[in-house]
């Protein structure tokens, strides 16, 4: 008998990465900006999407894939405002690409401009799963505290923007704006930080403008590539 060690050097996540990149390209080709919203439970992802849909009205065509471990409550909240599909994970703590792809096919929305993925409320696992989005946005509500970027560095490091929600409650909670900005700058300097209150519908114009700008960059990038 002889013992042999055989070099392999295989990227275990490689296939998943390629699948996500192919999906992203497919959306880019169709002019759809895909936005993956992550946050802890109750930070206001659904409320932010409701406010977004109300703000845009007929201006832009958007749709939402909303992930939860159980119930279709979020989809019910969104349904009067925008095309939506509930993705139920059956207990899993994050969405995976296969669920998103089949949810998108079921949406059947022609000429879509914005596809939002509302991830399962969790600041840990969703940060490790590329869903083929162009933009990952972390929603942090002021009631959660200003220490979260440092405590959940992967969520903040892998996101391109942070929406600080429930800003109408700032006078009542110990949330120091400078602390969160300082933490964000240590983890992911240059990240866009937007203040909002989804329920009061403040800051929604700036958020929607940010999204429109991101989508125009997507289109120009595609045009340059062609």
């Amino acid at each position, binding site marked *: *008998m002889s013992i042999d060690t055989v070099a392999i050097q295989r990227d275990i996540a490689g296939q998943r990465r390629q699948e996500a990149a192919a999906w992203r390209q497919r959306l880019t080709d169709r002019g759809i900006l895909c936005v993956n919203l992550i946050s802890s439970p109750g930070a206001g992802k659904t409320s932010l999407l409701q406010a977004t849909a109300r703000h845009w009205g007929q201006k832009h065509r958007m749709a939402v894939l909303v992930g939860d471990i159980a119930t279709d409550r979020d989809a019910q909240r969104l349904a009067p405002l925008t095309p939506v599909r509930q993705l139920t994970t059956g207990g899993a703590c994050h969405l995976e690409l296969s669920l998103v792809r089949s949810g998108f096919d079921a949406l059947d929305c022609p000429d879509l401009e914005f596809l939002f993925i509302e991830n399962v409320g969790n600041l840990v696992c969703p940060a490790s799963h590329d869903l083929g989005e162009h933009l990952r946005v972390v929603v942090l509500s002021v009631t959660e505290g200003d220490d979260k970027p440092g405590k959940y560095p992967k969520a903040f490091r892998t996101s391109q923007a942070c929406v600080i929600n429930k800003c109408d409650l700032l006078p009542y909670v110990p949330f120091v704006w400078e602390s969160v900005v300082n933490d964000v700058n*240590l983890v992911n300097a240059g990240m866009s930080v937007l203040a909002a209150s989804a329920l009061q519908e403040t800051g929604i114009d700036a958020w929607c403008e940010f999204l429109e700008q991101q989508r125009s960059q997507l289109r120009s990038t595609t045009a340059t590539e062609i």
Partner: protein
Amino acid sequence: MRLIEQIEEELQNRQLSGLTAVHLEVGEFAGVEPSLLETAFQELAAERWPQQVQLRLTVVPLTVRCRQCCEQFPVERFRFVCPRCEHAKVDVISGEELRLVNLTVVRPQPQEAVS
């Protein structure tokens, strides 16, 4: 990530059998907790292979490069800020990987050549 399937695929492609050890590199920022991976691996390996398979894990530190001064440094306590020039735009160069480095197998002694 289907680690076990990918190992099996490598074994089949190279016509190897008698797996005894698997060496993985796990980035500190890969979102994988080594002790949990070890537990899951042992459970799944016991279902897949009759023999004991050892898992060797090497944790790769999170290392980044400063976009301004090109300093390479390990990220400590999630400070993605250059210790040399205080610039905060940095690119990750290692520490996010999950790589199957090598497989150790026991081969039967080749038949003695017939003279």
